[in-house]
C-alpha cells in the first residue's frame, strides 16, 4: 500500500490493450497486490501427496477400480488469466489421475470441460490446458466440452430445500467417481461452485445467477457473505448426496506477466533500468502496432504462474485450504472506504480469451469482478464513484458473442436496469433456439450469458453514484448508462458532482490481482 506524495512517480494504469503512466493526486491511496508467493518446489510431489493423503477422503487409489467409469472434469479456459504457460497445472493433475486410473485398470475414462454456459473450447485450447499427450489419447470421443443444452446428457439430481433444481452433466454425475480438477484464481472460484455451476444447465444456473442473488452477495468473492455461494453450497449438498466426488484444487501465485512485461508485476519505484527500458519499448511498440497485431500479441501472453498449493479430497474441506491460499496471495487489509475507486482495466477478462473484450465484458470486469474484490465492505463507499480506464470499443466477436451483440443493441438501448432486463428479456434470450444452436455447435457463449455479465455489476450499480470511463468510446459508454471523460483530471472533475472537491481516492493497482479486506 502506498499514499501518493511528491516523490511518487506516475503509476502504471492498464487501459485495455495498452497501458500508460498516470499521475495521481497527492494523498491517493494505492493498493498494490501482495508480493508473489514462492511456488511449490516440487509440484509433482505435491500432486502425489494430495492424491495419496487427501482431506476427509480415502486416497484416490482406493477409489479407483477396474471396470469403473471415471469422469475427470476440469475448469475451462476462463481461468487462470492470462492462460498459464505450459504445462498448465490442470494438465499435470489430470495426467497424474489418469496414470493412477491406468494402474488400477480403469479403461472407461471421460474428460469433460466444465464450461457451463461458456463457449466450447477449440481443440487447440483443450490441448493447451491438458497437454498433447492427454489430448491425443482422449480427443474427441472421450474428451469433450460440457453441453448444457443436451437433454440426453443432463440429469436432475434433486432439489435443494429452497426449491433449487440441481441439473448437471449426466456422464459426470453417473460416473462411479467424479474427479474435479480446479485452478482457483480468485476466492469466488472452486468449492461448491465447481460441479453445480461448471456442469449445470440454464435451468439450474438461474437459481443463483440472477439479480436478486447478486445484490445480496457482498461480495461474491467472500463466500460466507455471498448469497450466490449459499446457493452453491445448498446445491453442493445435493451433489454430495448423489455423486461420488473427489475434488482437487490448486492455487497459483501472482506471476501474472511474462518476463518481457515483468514491469507490470513490479512496483514502479522498484523498476530496474531494464524494466524502465522494457516499459518504453513495449509502450511504443504497442502504440505503433496495427490493432490486429496488438490484439494477437496480448492474447498470446501466457502467465508464468507458479503453483502455490494442491489439495484434494472432500470439497468443502479442500476448499477451505484453497481459500486460505488465495487470501495468502491476494488479501490486503485497508482502513476505511474511499470516495473514488480507480481501476485500470486490462485487455482480458474470463470471457474474452482469444476473443474481443466487448463493452459488456468491460462493464463486467470493472463493476463485477474488480469492484467485488473485497471482504467486509466495498473499497468505495456507498454513493461513491468508480473511475475506470478502458477504451471500451464498440466491438464484438461475432462468433463468440452473438447474443452480446443483440443484448447491447436491443436490451441496453431500452434499459440498463438489471432487474428490468431480467424480467423482460432474459427468458427469451436464454431459450432462443438460434443462440442454443450456436452454443452447441459453434463457439458461442450461451444466449443468456450477457445477462449474467450485466447482473455481475448489479451490486456496483446499486452501490455507486457514478461510473466514469477514461479514454473510452463515448457511444459505448453512454449505451451502458455510464459517463466518459477524456482524461483522468476530467473524470475527477466530473466525480466532484458526487463526492466533492476533496475526495478520498483509492487506486487498486491491478492486475496482478489483489483483494481488499476493508476495515
Amino acid at each position, binding site marked *: 500500500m502506498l499514499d501518493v506524495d511528491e516523490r511518487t512517480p506516475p503509476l502504471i494504469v492498464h487501459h485495455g490493450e495498452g497501458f500508460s503512466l498516470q499521475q495521481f493526486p497527492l494523498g491517493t491511496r494505492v493498493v498494490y497486490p501482495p508480493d508473489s508467493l514462492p511456488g511449490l518446489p516440487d509440484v509433482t510431489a505435491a500432486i502425489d501427496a494430495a492424491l495419496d493423503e487427501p482431506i476427509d477422503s480415502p486416497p484416490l487409489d482406493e477409489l479407483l477400480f477396474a471396470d469403473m467409469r471415471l469422469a475427470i472434469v476440469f475448469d475451462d479456459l476462463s481461468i487462470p488469466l492470462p492462460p498459464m504457460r505450459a504445462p498448465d497445472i490442470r494438465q499435470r493433475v489430470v495426467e497424474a489421475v489418469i496414470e493412477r486410473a491406468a494402474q488400477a485398470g480403469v479403461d472407461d475414462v471421460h474428460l469433460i470441460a466444465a464450461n457451463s454456459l461458456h463457449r466450447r473450447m477449440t481443440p487447440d485450447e483443450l490441448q493447451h490446458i491438458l497437454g498433447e499427450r492427454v489430448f491425443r489419447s482422449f480427443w474427441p470421443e472421450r474428451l469433450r466440452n460440457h453441453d448444457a443444452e443436451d437433454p440426453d446428457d443432463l440429469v436432475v439430481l434433486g432439489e435443494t430445500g429452497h426449491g433449487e433444481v440441481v441439473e448437471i452433466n449426466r456422464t459426470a454425475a453417473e460416473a462411479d467417481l467424479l474427479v474435479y480438477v480446479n485452478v482457483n484464481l480468485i476466492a469466488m472460484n472452486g468449492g461448491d461452485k465447481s460441479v453445480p455451476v461448471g456442469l449445470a444447465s440454464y435451468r439450474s444456473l438461474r437459481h443463483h445467477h440472477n439479480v436478486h442473488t447478486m445484490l445480496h452477495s457482498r461480495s461474491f468473492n467472500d463466500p460466507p457473505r455471498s448469497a450466490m455461494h449459499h446457493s452453491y453450497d445448498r446445491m453442493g449438498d445435493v451433489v454430495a448426496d448423489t455423486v461420488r466426488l473427489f475434488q482437487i484444487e490448486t492455487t497459483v501465485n501472482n506471476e501474472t506477466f511474462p518476463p518481457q512485461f515483468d514491469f507490470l508485476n513490479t512496483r514502479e519505484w522498484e523498476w530496474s533500468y531494464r524494466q524502465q527500458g522494457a516499459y518504453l519499448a513495449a509502450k511504443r511498440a504497442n502504440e505503433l502496432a496495427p490493432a490486429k497485431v496488438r490484439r494477437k500479441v496480448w492474447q498470446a501472453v501466457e502467465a508464468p504462474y507458479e503453483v502455490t498449493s494442491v489439495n484434494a479430497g472432500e470439497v468443502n474441506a479442500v476448499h477451505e485450504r484453497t481459500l486460505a491460499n488465495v487470501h495468502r496471495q491476494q488479501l490486503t487489509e485497508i482502513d476505511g472506504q474511499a470516495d473514488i475507486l480507480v481501476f485500470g482495466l486490462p485487455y482480458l477478462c474470463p470471457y474474452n480469451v482469444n476473443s474481443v473484450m466487448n463493452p459488456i465484458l468491460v462493464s463486467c470486469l470493472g463493476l463485477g469482478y474488480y469492484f467485488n474484490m473485497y471482504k467486509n465492505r466495498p473499497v468505495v463507499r456507498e454513493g461513491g464513484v468508480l473511475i475506470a480506464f478502458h477504451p471500451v470499443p464498440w466491438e464484438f466477436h461475432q462468433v463468440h458473442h452473438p447474443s452480446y*451483440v*443483440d443484448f447491447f443493441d*436491443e436490451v441496453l438501448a431500452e434499459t440498463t436496469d438489471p432487474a428490468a432486463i431480467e424480467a423482460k428479456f432474459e427468458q*427469451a434470450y436464454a431459450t*432462443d433456439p438460434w443462440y442454443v444452436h450456436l452454443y452447441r455447435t459453434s463457439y458461442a457463449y450461451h444466449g443468456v450469458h450477457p445477462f449474467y455479465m450485466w447482473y455481475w455489476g448489479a451490486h456496483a450499480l446499486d452501490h455507486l453514484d457514478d461510473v466514469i470511463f477514461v479514454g473510452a468510446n463515448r457511444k459505448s459508454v453512454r449505451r451502458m448508462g455510464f459517463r466518459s471523460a477524456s482524461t483522468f483530471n476530467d473524470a475527477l472533475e466530473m466525480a466532484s458532482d458526487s463526492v466533492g472537491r476533496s475526495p478520498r481516492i483509492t487506486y487498486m493497482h491491478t492486475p496482478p490481482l489483489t483483494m481488499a479486506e476493508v476495515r
Partner: protein
Amino acid sequence: MVLSLELYRSRSRYVAAQATQRISGSLTAPLAPLRLADRAAPTPPNPAAWARLRPRLSGICGSDLATLSGKSSRYLSGAVSFPFVPGHEIVADTLDDLDGIPARTRVVVDPVLSCRPRGLDPCDACSIGRTSRCDHITVGHLAPGLQTGYCADTGGGWSRELIAHRDQLRIVPDHISDEAAVLVEPLACAVHAVRRAAVLPGQSVLIVGAGTVGLLVLAALRELTQAGDVTVVAKHRRQRELAWQLGASEVVAPDRAITAVRRATRAHLLRPDHSPEALLGGLDQALDCAGSAGALDLALRSVRAGGRVTLAAMPAGRTDLAPAWFRELEVVGAYATSRNGTLAPGEADDFDTAISMVAGDLGPLIGGLISAVYPLDCWREALDHALEAGRLGAFKIAFDPGAEQRRTGPEAVPEQTADAPAPPVPLTSTGRDNQ
C-alpha cells in the same frame, strides 16, 4: 399556355442525374431532364367526359423521383409518352361541369389511365374494376401513359392545368384539408397494397421503409386488418417517431432489421458467403415500401418459408430472388389502386376507403405528413428537398402550382423557362380555405 414542369427525353441528362443521385439531391435536381415551360393547355378528347383541373397541391412521389433520377425500371419506359408533366398525387378544382361534378368542385384524381378514359371498351381487368391491371394503357385516344403524370396528352399535377376523365375524379369532403387530400392517392395505393397482402388476423408483418408510403401502409394495415406484431424498418428519427404513433409494434434501423426480426421470431440465421444474412423462419409477411433493391432484399430475407412479400413501392435495381425460390415465397405486386375485384360485398374501393380514413381521426396525422410546399418556380429546391426528405426529417413535399399566380395575379405571371428560373421564395403554407 400553361406553366408546367415538363419531363423530356434526354439520355445524357438521365445519365448525369443517375450518376449524381448517390452524391446529393442538390446535384440531381438541376441535372434531371426537367424544365419549367409554358405548354399548350391539354385538350380534352371528349368534353362531355373530361374536365380541366386546376391543381391546388400536387405531391412529389418516390416514383417521380426515381423517374427523374433515372432509377426507375426501364420496363416502364414503354408505358409513358414524352414530353410529359409529372404529378399524379393531385388535389384540384374542376374548371368544367361534368355529370355529377359541377365546376369549381374540389376533387382528387385516380391517376390510372385505363380503358374508359381512353375511350375504349373495357378490357378483362377493367370490366371487373381492376383498373390498375388495364391492358390498354398504350392505346386509345390518348398517348401511351400508365397514369396521369406519365402521359403526354393529359398534363400532370406539376402544372397549373391538366385534364382528367370523369371516371378519374373523386369529390373531396369539405372538412378535409388540402394537405390531407393530396395524400388520398398514396393512401389509396397503401390500402390497395394492404388488400393485396391479405394479412390474416394475428399475422406478423414487416414494413420495410418508413417514408410516406411505409407510414401510410402502416396506417392502412392497422385500420383494415387485425395484423399482429408490425415491425417497421425506419432509417430516420422522425420516421421512427411517426411509426410508433401509427401503431408499430417495433421500429428498427435497417442495419438491425434482420437481427431484430430474428430475435422477435426466434428464427435461425442463414449466413451466406458474400451476401447479406437471411432468416430460416421469420415473419409471416413483408411489404417493401421503399422500392430499393436493398429494401426488397431485406423483405425477401425476413419472411418465413411460404410467407408473402408485397411490393408496395415501385421496385428499382437488382434483387437476388433466390430466397423467393428457396423459401417458396409469394411475391405479390401492388400497383396503384383497384375499383373492385378483391372487395367484399359492401366494401368501399381503395380510393373511397382512403377518403374515409382521411376524413376520420387519421386526417390530421396524415395531413401532417406534408412537410413543405413549394411554388413551381422553386422546383429545384422542391426536388432537392424531396430527394433528401428522410435525412431532413421530412416526408411528403408538394407543389402548389397556383402559388405564384395568386401572389402576382394571373396576368402578371412572367413566362418561365428552364434557363431563367424564378428566384427562390420562402416555403409557403397551404393553410387556406378549402372552398
